[in-house]
């Protein structure tokens, strides 16, 4: 029975076994590939290096990330700013909840054609699409988080006459933050989808646009390398998000662990 915690090298090895095997299998089975759609992995990786580590490649990724950041951060701010008063007022919640649930149920990609009407084909359109798609999970989760604030803690805050901004900063925001982060996580996935879709649909630059170009011109190895690039962007953003969440919600993870243990 492996009851002892495995030493670090062993853990790294276990983590790497399957991925390395899969990549090796991909490499080997595609090595002699004549298939048009599935070129050898070797070729893909070579193209990847050529393409994405060049100034050209980076200039394709940069606008995408820029639009995503602007839209996502704006959605986060607005979602939290609106979510807090709505969450705090039972009447506001009752009135707005059906409307908000409807708006969030509209599949975000649908907004791309709609917003093209309003904002044309430029950067604003894409940032707006991301904003409109990302705001709902943040907003609704903020509402849920504010609603679920501990009553005893709320009374403690009142008894010590902590109000206004201090109450918001020290009580409401930290108290709702675990739920808010759940919303932010969902929003990140939606934001990436919208970033890519809006660029595939109507753009002149960006990774979505580039990917569609490769596919249309049958530049297959480049297309595959683009897919891998998009995958890497997704992974890196997810890691950054997790790191930020671990930093801000460290207290929460500790709290939940102690609750589970007790």
């Amino acid at each position, binding site marked *: 029975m492996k009851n002892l915690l495995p030493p670090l090298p062993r853990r790294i090895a276990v983590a790497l076994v399957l991925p390395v095997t899969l990549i090796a299998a991909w490499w080997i089975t595609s090595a002699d590939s004549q298939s048009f759609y599935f070129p050898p992995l070797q070729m893909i990786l070579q193209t990847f290096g050529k393409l994405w580590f060049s100034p050209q490649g980076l200039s394709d990724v940069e606008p995408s990330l820029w639009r995503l950041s602007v839209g996502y951060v704006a959605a986060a701010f607005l979602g939290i700013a609106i979510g807090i008063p709505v969450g705090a007022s039972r009447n506001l919640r009752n009135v707005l909840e059906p409307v908000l649930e409807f708006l969030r149920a509209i599949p975000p990609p649908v907004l791309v054609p709609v917003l093209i009407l309003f904002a044309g084909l430029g950067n604003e359109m894409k940032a707006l699409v991301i904003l409109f798609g990302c705001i709902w999970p943040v907003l609704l989760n903020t509402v849920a988080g504010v609603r679920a604030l501990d009553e005893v803690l709320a009374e403690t805050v009142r008894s010590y006459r902590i109000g206004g901004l201090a109450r918001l900063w020290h*009580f409401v925001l930290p108290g709702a933050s675990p739920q808010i982060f759940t919303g932010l996580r969902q929003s990140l996935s939606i934001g990436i989808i919208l970033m890519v879709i809006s660029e595939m649909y109507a753009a002149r630059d960006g990774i979505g646009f580039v990917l569609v170009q490769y596919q249309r011109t049958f530049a297959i190895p480049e297309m595959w390398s683009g897919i891998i690039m998009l995958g890497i962007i997704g992974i890196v953003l997810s890691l950054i998000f997790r790191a930020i969440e671990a930093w801000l919600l460290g207290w929460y993870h500790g709290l939940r662990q102690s609750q589970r243990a007790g």
Partner: protein
Amino acid sequence: MDRAVKPMLEVTGLRKVYEDASRTVEAIRDVSFSVGEGELVCIVGPSGAGKTTLLKCIAGLLAPTAGAVVVEGTPVIGPPPSMAVVFQEYGRSLFPWMSVHDNVALPLKQKKMAAERREELVRNALAAVDLKGVDTAYPWQLSGGMQQRVAIARAVAYEPHVLLMDEPFAAVDAQTRADLEDLIRVLWHQLRVTVLFVTHDIDESVYLGQRVLVMSHAPTVIMEDVIIDLPEERTQLETRSMARFGELRKHIYSQIQLAKQGWRPPSK
């Protein structure tokens, strides 16, 4: 005892009625009493006696339906700055995202004071409740008794004139409860603060208090205001085995039994 010259806290004709869509509940019918400066008064009663409601009305957290609460001559309309409350659910009344130090310091940040003074108060309060070396720990890393000490330290650092405690030791094990009871008496002596202590534990109320207010069942009135004429110096072992302790205890116990049967003082 000549300490109680001017009343620190006066409750007059307090009445609290809860109304919601389906029914009306008269939790408190008529409660009047006063607490002198520096007194330690316990409130005891059967469960359902509206003790917590009473405390919340006094603390300004709940608006009474009728009657008045006056603290140091000023009527209470919201939580007054000279009061601090210690709740029963210590786990939920401490901020889990702040360290022990920050938990104690937060209410002080509302009272404009120099940072050094604030730090001094925090340090002294934590020392007063006998908590060493937990400044940077989080509340959920501590045991239940230690968490309640943090809550008490927070109240102490606030330098209140009146300390309200709502069954603070109900959720703590017996040995810890004994330690905390002694801690309260020590703090009370040191700080000369006025204490209103709500409990369902009769022994605790007799051990701690100078007076014990016995509550009836809802709609609540005061059944009796019992003077605890035990010596000022009290210890768990000796005081609790005194004959007078047993008498007082028995008296209050029988009052509570009457209360549970619905008996109330005449004309109430």
